[in-house]
């Protein structure tokens, strides 16, 4: 059976302080001064606090993730073409935020730029870039590291840290 390591996490915005998580936790991991569950004390797969919480503030986080569902090259190509178009829409709208003569048009242009970026990101999500741990995401990081190696401004350390920690 597929059973990745887990730990509990609290969404503080949902927590109504019913304290059931404090009552049921066998290790004290849920009782902390910063409102977050102490993941180092949390028992993988336990989920007693998650099931006890009446406000749905606790959920399980995973320490590893499966590879995203396979995609055909044909669908990825079409999704990425649309995403590219969305990045061009974002660029055009961003340019208009700078040249717009009224505050109203500037606001509209800004909304279009935001919407376009969100659409592009979502289309990439379904183009094999669902999670940073996927083999495509790792390949993208290695590609950037290679491509930008002569650019002093490129945040190489950021990429190395990502490749090491994901």
């Amino acid at each position, binding site marked *: 059976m597929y059973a990745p390591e887990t730990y509990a996490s609290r969404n503080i915005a949902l927590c109504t302080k019913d304290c059931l998580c404090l009552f049921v936790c066998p290790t004290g991991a849920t009782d902390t001064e910063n409102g977050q569950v102490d993941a180092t004390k949390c028992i993988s797969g336990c989920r007693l606090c998650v099931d006890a919480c009446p406000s749905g503030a606790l959920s399980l986080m995973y320490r590893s993730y499966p590879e995203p569902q396979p995609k055909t090259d044909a669908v990825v190509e079409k999704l990425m073409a649309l995403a590219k178009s969305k990045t061009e*829409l*974002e660029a055009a709208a*961003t340019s208009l935020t700078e040249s717009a003569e009224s505050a109203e048009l500037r606001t509209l242009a800004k909304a279009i730029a935001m919407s376009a970026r*969100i659409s592009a990101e*979502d289309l*990439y999500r379904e183009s094999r870039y*669902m999670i940073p741990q996927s083999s495509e995401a790792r390949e993208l990081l290695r590609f950037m590291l290679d491509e930008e190696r002569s650019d002093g401004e490129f945040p190489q350390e950021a990429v190395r840290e990502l490749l090491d920690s*994901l």
Partner: protein
Amino acid sequence: MDAMKELSRRELSALCSNLAKACEKQQLFEQQKRFVELADYHAGKADGADGADLKTIEAVVKGDLDSGFGPAFDQAHADHDRGALRALTWSQKATALLDSLLKRYERQGDALIEGTNVYVCEICGFVFVGDNPPDVCPICKVPKSKIVKVRG
């Protein structure tokens, strides 16, 4: 890797900002910052779309609606790829909405937005003009808390 060479700076930026969001959802906040750093780096290197106006924007929107979504939907249906169909459904609806908003702006000009606000759904890109955004996003059905006001 060869296909990656074709990616523009803007595409690289959006790929990285998407992965930043995935890190945030996994509560990998350090990794989120790193991907944001990369997204900003690529955005900073991108060529500006100088001289773009409403006509440029309308043309991109129309192009997607007329010839972008159709073939993508066909392929996603052929593959039984419901994830792709989900993203295409949201994006097509958000794009059609932009199209109608642009047409309304053409007719009414600044009066469309004067004295009111513009909101964007952070999840699907739904755009709303008015004072009270809906309780639930009409496109992706997230609650109102994910529909944010655009600051002018």
